[in-house]
């Protein structure tokens, strides 16, 4: 039979970076900013974090470096789209290209060795021994941080004035404007937050998970993170479901292979994507007042003079 704990642990490992990146993007999108440059921001953040530990900086500094770099990349995007009102879709895609190229070029000297410092697993006594869900309680520091940030963000969005301001800006910026809110400033903040978290996701990949640097380290997970925001209906709580679903089904397919089940590996490779679609359809067809619409002003430039 298939051992469930290793499966779950594997799912968690893959889910954490997805969680960070999608959480950041979710906040940005709730403010009305569609940033398709997640992959690029993750990559530059990953390189910055790896370079920091490789130069002896320690993991805390690596986290800061990763987040700062991600935010910096997001800043470039923000200037283009929020101040200069360029197309968000195109700017985001351009950011992905620049991020990928820049990280590949600057990272050439960092290929070929293991990260000298990493995040150790911190099992919670008692809880980590639980059957099936045990691995959820023996993550590393960043894993717990991801859950904490998720909870904090969910609370922020739903129960604080900040959250209301953010949501208003994303739903109806003209109304927000008329209330005296500075739409552009809020969007800048949300975008930078998204960038910082994408950088953090990259840091996790480079320092905690793979402990190395290489071009394209994040292997397209930035795009999955974007999809997860949509999957979660723009609500933080469902991000966990999506991230675990994706990482878990991938792990399940591989585990089935290892167990000798004779299904075409190509079919198994398709499973995570099909599963995501299936669950999304299930969620979306629920006719109750479940949020499934994007923030009304998502992707649309806001002209402050209107």
């Amino acid at each position, binding site marked *: 039979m298939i051992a469930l704990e290793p499966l779950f642990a594997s799912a968690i490992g893959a889910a954490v970076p997805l969680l960070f990146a999608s959480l950041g993007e979710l906040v940005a999108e709730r403010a009305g900013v569609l940033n398709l440059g997640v992959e690029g921001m993750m990559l530059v953040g990953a390189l910055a974090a790896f370079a920091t530990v490789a130069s002896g900086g320690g993991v805390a500094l690596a986290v800061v470096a990763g987040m700062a770099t991600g935010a910096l990349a997001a800043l470039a995007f923000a200037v283009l789209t929020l101040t200069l009102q360029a*197309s968000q879709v195109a700017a985001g*895609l351009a950011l992905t290209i*620049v*991020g990928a190229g820049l990280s590949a070029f600057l990272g050439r000297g960092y290929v070929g060795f293991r990260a000298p410092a990493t995040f150790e697993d911190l099992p919670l006594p008692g809880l980590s021994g639980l059957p099936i869900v045990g691995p959820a309680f023996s993550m590393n520091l960043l894993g717990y941080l991801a859950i904490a940030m998720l909870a904090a963000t969910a609370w922020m969005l739903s129960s604080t004035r900040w959250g209301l301001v953010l949501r208003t800006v994303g739903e109806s910026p003209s109304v927000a404007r008329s*209330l005296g809110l500075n739409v552009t400033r809020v969007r800048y903040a949300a975008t930078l937050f998204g960038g910082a978290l994408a950088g953090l996701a990259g840091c996790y990949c480079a320092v905690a998970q793979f402990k190395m640097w290489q071009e394209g380290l994040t292997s397209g997970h930035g795009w999955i993170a974007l*999809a997860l925001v949509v999957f979660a209906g723009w609500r933080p709580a469902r991000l966990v479901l999506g991230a675990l679903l994706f990482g878990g089904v991938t792990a399940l397919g591989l585990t089935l292979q290892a167990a000798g089940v004779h299904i075409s590996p190509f079919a198994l490779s*398709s499973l995570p994507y099909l599963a995501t679609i299936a669950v999304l359809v299930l969620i979306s067809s629920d006719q109750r007042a479940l949020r499934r619409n994007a923030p009304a002003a998502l992707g649309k430039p806001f002209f402050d003079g209107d």
Partner: protein
Amino acid sequence: MQLLSPLLAMALTLLCGLGIFAGLGLPPGRAFHALFIEPVSGMNGLSELLLIASPLCLIALGLAIGYRANVWNIGAEGQMYLGGICATGVAIHWQGHAGAWTLWAMLVAGAAGGALWASVTAYLRARLHANEILVSLMLTYVADQLVKYLVYGPWQDPQANKFPMTVEFGDDALLPLLQSFGWEIFDGTRVNASVFIVLAAIPAAWLFIGRSFAGFRLDVSGQAPAAARYAGFPQTGAIWLGMLIGGAAAGLAGAAELAGPIGRLNDRWTPGFGFTAIIVAALGRLHPLGIALAALLMALLYLGGEAGQIALQLPKAISQVFQGMLLMFLLGCDVLVRHRLQWRAAPEIAAGAAA
């Protein structure tokens, strides 16, 4: 005025480029020549430019029609795969039997295959309210696995030493090269009849968007959905039409790519045209002529990256940075030129006073 923005962008990119090249120790003039001039000097270069720009333009045209209706088809790449699969199916099973009809059948099958794949997304969106961005993107990965399954399995060429490829397409399943029409200027180049398809698609798209009732309804659907519904054109219609057109265009481009320079199906035949086309559509501001120009520009950037490596050993990553930078400057300058930025303090309304 329209030209000022790209010129400004080029100037800014040039400036930054100077900095980069100086840092790398490369002569800037030589570098720019290698990146932008050399790739398109000569017929061969121009034909390669067209070869890349054609599928980009075709797919972007289809996508733009959907985007105007707020139908965000991100899965053009997957629809391209399906178009390629269907075209391959026709090619493998019909070639040698149907003569001149094979190629036409392939192209039709390609468009149909792409539309079919897009219709999955359309159905899930229209009927079950699943967001089309996510569904179309996920389906792209699924389509990729489907291609791999076919070329590693039932469609594998028995002579291919167990490698993932189908048999080569016969002559009746290949697009004729332009040089075969007797136009000597194209001798030795790879450009083929697919340019005719694209040249026809541009005015067709323009007519559809600007002059047809269906195109008008799609536009209204995108810009004022409530008004569209009131006028009797429900959102579902826009979704289906937008997705199907985008899918058909992508599928057709896929078929043309296989019936063109590649000549068989294998497991890694497209360099991401489906995704690049999204950039092309956005750069072209969703307008057919803009798209055509943007497609040529992206194609030039593609070629420049390779040329830079060969002529100067410029790392591929640098040309990627260049491409991204140029795009960002283009986007930025576009706006600066089209609007005048006014810096003035926004009137503050005390939030408390409103209460």
